[in-house]
């Protein structure tokens, strides 16, 4: 047992040393860049990034002029940009997920023969091999600047990425429900919809939520190539050297990502093996069990 443990430690240590050697190779032995870099970061933070321009978050922008909401926040550049990014991510995640769920059963080796799974996997690898930002550049050329290019880019990437996660999940499911269904004579479509999807449903839901969060984060980057959303504002601010503006947008993105993370934690808590329906609250999901109990006692 301890011999096995020692081997694990030895391998881990070996990997760490290899990583340091490779890094040394990458910086060509000049670590001055790294040590000096931190001082530069502090300077950049103090002079350029902080304080952020709060007005971008809390005050109404001049465009569009017909913003009818009284509260400035809902007409601010950061809010409208982030909302567009969220819409793009939502649409792309839903369509991408549907595309992936339609393709992944044709890429799982426990469901289809090799001559079906190989072309499907090649297609999924193709959509995944190009990062979404490259797809976005292609779609900006095809459909022009704006959110549609971003949405199309994210859909393709989602299909490839989620598709791979899904077929790996499908290949890992217990073989007995599949065998029972096959022996019954159920069709491939029935096996997928009635056995595979319910059996992997929890993981699929996790993947869906993860991909939404991923698309929100990447949606912000896609704006840099003209594919809409808050990224477009970040791109313009960077071009003009307004790093305080960039900081404002980054704060909004960070807060939204944290909210999505907590929400997905809450939603996923309903589908775990231990989940008891009707006994859930956001607090009980976010806090450790001991704190939740104390909180409940106080409530009672």
């Amino acid at each position, binding site marked *: 047992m301890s011999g096995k443990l020692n081997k694990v430690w030895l391998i881990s240590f070996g990997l760490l040393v290899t990583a340091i050697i490779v890094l040394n190779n990458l910086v060509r032995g000049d670590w001055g860049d790294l040590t000096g870099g931190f001082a530069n970061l502090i300077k950049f933070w103090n002079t350029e990034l902080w304080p952020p321009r709060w007005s971008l978050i809390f005050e109404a922008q001049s465009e569009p002029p017909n913003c009818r909401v009284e509260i400035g926040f809902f007409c601010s550049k950061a809010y409208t940009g982030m909302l567009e990014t969220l819409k793009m991510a939502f649409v792309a995640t839903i369509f991408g997920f549907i595309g992936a769920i339609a393709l992944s059963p044709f890429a799982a080796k426990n469901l289809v023969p090799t001559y079906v799974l190989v072309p499907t996997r090649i297609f999924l690898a193709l959509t995944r091999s190009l990062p979404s930002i490259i797809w976005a550049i292609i779609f900006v050329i095809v459909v022009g600047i704006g959110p549609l290019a971003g949405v199309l880019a994210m859909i393709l990437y989602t299909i490839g990425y989620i598709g791979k996660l899904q077929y790996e999940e499908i290949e890992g499911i*217990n073989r007995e*429900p599949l065998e*029972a269904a096959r022996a019954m004579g159920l069709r491939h479509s029935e096996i997928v919809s009635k056995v595979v999807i319910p059996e992997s449903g929890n993981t699929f839901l996790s993947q869906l939520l993860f991909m939404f969060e991923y698309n929100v984060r990447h949606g912000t980057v896609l704006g840099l190539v003209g594919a809409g959303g808050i990224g477009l504002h970040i791109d313009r601010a960077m071009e003009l050297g307004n790093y305080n503006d960039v900081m404002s947008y980054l704060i909004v993105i960070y807060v939204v990502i944290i909210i999505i993370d907590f929400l997905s934690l809450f939603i996923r808590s309903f589908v775990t093996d231990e989940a008891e329906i009707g006994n859930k609250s956001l607090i009980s999901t976010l806090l450790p069990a001991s704190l939740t109990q104390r909180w409940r006692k106080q409530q009672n």
Partner: protein
Amino acid sequence: MAKPIIKIRDLTVGYDFPLLSEINLEINPGEIVAIVGISGLGKTTLLRTIAGVIPKLSGQIFGDIRRRGGIGYIPQRLGLVRHASVYHNVELGARCGVKLSTESGNIFNWSKRKSLVIRDCVDQVGLSEKIDEPIRRLSGGQQRRVATARAIAQKPQLILADEFLSELDKENADSIISLMRKYVSDTQCAMLLVEHHIVRAEQIADRIIDLSGFDSKLTSEA
């Protein structure tokens, strides 16, 4: 004499190498046959081969069982969809058992008839109150009842069951045994089960084939 439901001739089963060879077996309508024997002989492999889940190495299997819904297979760990409800699992069997015929009306009629069959089967195994519960929240005995309900909802010609009476207490085992015996007798289907519990095999089966000490060859005469 009635035509056998399944007739096996010189069947060899296994994976890269044969586990059981020269298998000859006939099972008649309304008959329950149990195979008993020590572990590792290839009893499960035999059931999986007859179920069509793995290919046979050689030999012939005759019988009108290869149609949709012809075989009801209960694997060792039951093969239930764990995250789905009792209703969902029994529905898998019922969608094969309740035929969608053009004479009997549209798809809504089919759905309605299917729902009645599901509820009836779940009722027969005494799980009406748990019909919407997910499988993962049921006890081992209750899960075996669900697998039984799924098999009978399918109205198969042949039921293959792999040690599905194991891990059951006497009361649960007795009730499932009497249910299966009645079902096989009423519908004149056939049942082949693998069972390591010899007393339970004697309780349920009309004929027992004991493979202990047998040199990897199974014949109906054995």
